[in-house]
């Protein structure tokens, strides 16, 4: 504003337009309008082309096809489905398959990842080296190659007749993984509710103990009461239902198995591939998390005679989780996204079924839009949950 004053006593109008050209605000506005116009123009141009091309190729538009009959069977379904159902239901079957293989993969990847991550920081040189070697290999081999490899392995497993026996609990064969399961019983639903109630009660007890400690300075150890209530409640329910203990063990019969529960070889291959790949990344995240707590803090906690369990609980874990959780969540999301390579092993996930729908109807734009939207929703929901969690564990600063 100050350096603009001398401009006043020249030719005011010319000066003003020059000022305008060199003013930051005007330029910013001009750039933005140009950019917005370019985006709108390109968008319209592409839209126009799509409409013309679709018309010329006689391809229907819109999502009406979702209500049409699909006319294809799906090998693995969690809900009732037949070739007489609609495309929409076929895609739903695919989504549920995506979610189930991802859920199993996340559990497996977390267990392996945490074990290897802890081994990475072990005091034992040998164990540490092995863990490092494992991480380097699983992280640097493409996930698709790993999945294809495990698919080849499951395909080449022996037939049910010569199936590998797993400690009397199940079989591994080219039909997949068959394992013993408890026979379904009404008690199971109630036991699950009791478990949830137990976890809630333990949480309430923990909060009470903390408040009590802050008010009186006296520590009440809630570990055993918590464990008792979490394990005890479902146990009580189980006993109240007369302790149903029927377990269905699989047996060889003819060319297949009877009893137990079987997951398909495609599921096994995909789950193994994507979770081993993710476990390498999770191990590195866990290592970084553990190393994030400075050694001095643990030593200080020890010097005030805090029990090892409390050091873990109140000193190391809160700081480690703060470092671990955000990247861990993004690993989970990328595992879900990696499950979309199911098509290479023939597992009917969302993308595989979407691909079939796309080929049958020719409506590529809509089919791909459905797939992308579903994955976007999964990503957005996960990152919202992550942000909430992050706020809870973040450093409380004044």
């Amino acid at each position: 504003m100050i350096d603009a004053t001398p401009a006043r006593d020249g030719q005011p109008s010319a000066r003003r337009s020059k000022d305008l050209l060199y003013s930051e605000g005007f330029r910013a506005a001009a750039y933005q309008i140009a950019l917005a116009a370019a985006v709108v123009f390109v968008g319209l141009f592409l839209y126009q082309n799509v409409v013309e091309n679709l018309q010329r190729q006689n391809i229907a538009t819109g999502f009406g096809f979702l209500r049409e009959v699909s006319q294809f069977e799906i090998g693995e379904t969690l809900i009732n489905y037949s070739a007489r159902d609609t495309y929409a239901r076929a895609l739903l079957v695919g989504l549920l398959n995506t979610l189930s293989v991802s859920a199993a993969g996340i559990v497996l990847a977390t267990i392996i990842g945490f074990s290897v991550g802890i081994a990475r920081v072990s005091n034992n040189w040998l164990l540490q080296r092995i863990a490092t070697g494992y991480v380097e290999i699983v992280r640097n081999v493409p996930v698709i190659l790993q999945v294809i490899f495990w698919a080849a392995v499951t395909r080449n497993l022996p037939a049910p007749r010569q199936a590998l026996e797993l400690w009397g609990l199940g079989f591994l064969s080219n039909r997949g993984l068959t394992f013993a399961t408890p026979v379904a019983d009404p008690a199971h639903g109630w036991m699950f509710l009791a478990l949830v109630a137990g976890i809630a009660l333990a949480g309430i007890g923990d909060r009470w103990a903390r408040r009590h400690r802050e008010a009186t300075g006296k520590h009440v150890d809630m570990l055993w009461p918590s464990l008792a209530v979490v394990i005890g409640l479902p146990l009580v329910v189980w006993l109240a239902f007369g302790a149903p203990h029927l377990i269905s063990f699989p047996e060889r019969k003819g060319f297949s198995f009877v009893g137990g529960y079987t997951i398909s070889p495609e599921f096994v291959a995909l789950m193994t591939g994507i979770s081993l790949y993710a476990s390498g990344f999770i191990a590195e995240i866990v290592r970084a998390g553990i190393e994030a707590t400075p050694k001095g803090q643990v030593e200080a906690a020890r010097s005030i005679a805090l029990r090892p369990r409390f050091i873990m609980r109140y000193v190391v874990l809160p700081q480690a989780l703060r470092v671990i959780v955000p990247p861990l969540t993004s690993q989970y999301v990328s595992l879900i996204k990696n499950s979309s390579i199911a098509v290479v092993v023939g597992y009917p996930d969302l993308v595989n079924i979407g691909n079939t729908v796309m080929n049958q109807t020719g409506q590529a734009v809509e089919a791909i839009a459905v797939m992308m939207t579903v994955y976007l929703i999964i990503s957005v929901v996960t990152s919202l949950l992550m942000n909430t969690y992050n706020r809870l564990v973040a450093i409380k600063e004044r």
Partner: protein
Amino acid sequence: MTTASSQTRLVTAAYDPLARMSAADWLKRNLFSSVWQTLLTLVTAAVLLRFFWFVLDWGVINAVWVTSDPDVCRAATGACWAVIVEKHRPMLFGLYPYDEHWRLVLMMVIYLVTVVVSLMPRNWNLRFLVPLWLVAAVSIGVLMFGGVLGLRYVPTSEWGGLPLTMLLFTGTVLFGMPVAVLLALGRRAPLPVARGVSVVFIEALRGVPLITILFVAVNVFPLFLPAGVQVDKLLRITIGIAIFFACYQAEVIRGGLQAIPRGQYEAAASLSLTYWQTTSRIILPQALRICLPAITNHIIAAMKNTSFVIIIGLFDILTATTAVMQDPLWRKFYVEAYLFVAAVYLFFGYALSLYARKVEKWIASGRI
């Protein structure tokens, strides 16, 4: 309690940082520090020895190295490396016409020499690099396509194997890095529209799997073009992977941009440098140096991601190997074949990360 002399000795022993630990001390500290650690070491060593013995027994002692008869392999109890010797050409070169494979060998030599020469800091001036890459690109194009100099024309639909993986990877990085920088700058720009466009673009593409983007490149992209205009499938796919790569890389570069202190911008402004001068001479050189390790990670990830093209039927090294493994005579030896492909990826990934570590060292020492 202790005599003065023993105390002195203890202190020197504990405080001499240059004293080398004796082998026995090292073993005691790292492998046998307690009963529990000793037990762990023994169990791990036993498992490891058994594993190594298996690898030696299967992979070397009983392995078949060269044979054109799969029955010889079937009779052996060890690995059948002969499958790689026997099938290396379809695995490495895919569908490319058999008699023209020498062109791919030559192409890979030119490619690797060009890349290695460009990675050396003493060659880092544009007057050398631009002609080098132009010559390399033209000669690789002539070799791959043919149709001139008496070479047979080979359309991109017949390209395959390791050269295709290399081309996809190079295209991804060369296309993707500038886009990534632009997106990152857009996301940090003071202009709300630019910021909005970048944010939506980055987040939308990061939220979906690469496969859906490849589907768009193959099935939807042709619909975007006006009638009569066609873009080669290989090019569309390369652009698809590149844009996906750019969205992840943009977030990394944004991290680097955020680490630049405000004073740098203010100093540049006080010298009345323009936005692009500030960005290209002051901000980006520092930001890219800061986030180099993360950039390398994504470049290595881009190399692994080229393998996704198996889903849309491009014959990269993995697709080619999977196709070879359909051969009923050799199908049994898939472990050997996939180990070979994994080794190829591991080799290039390891080479890239070694180079990146070197660059980090150069940066730390102020050489670049």
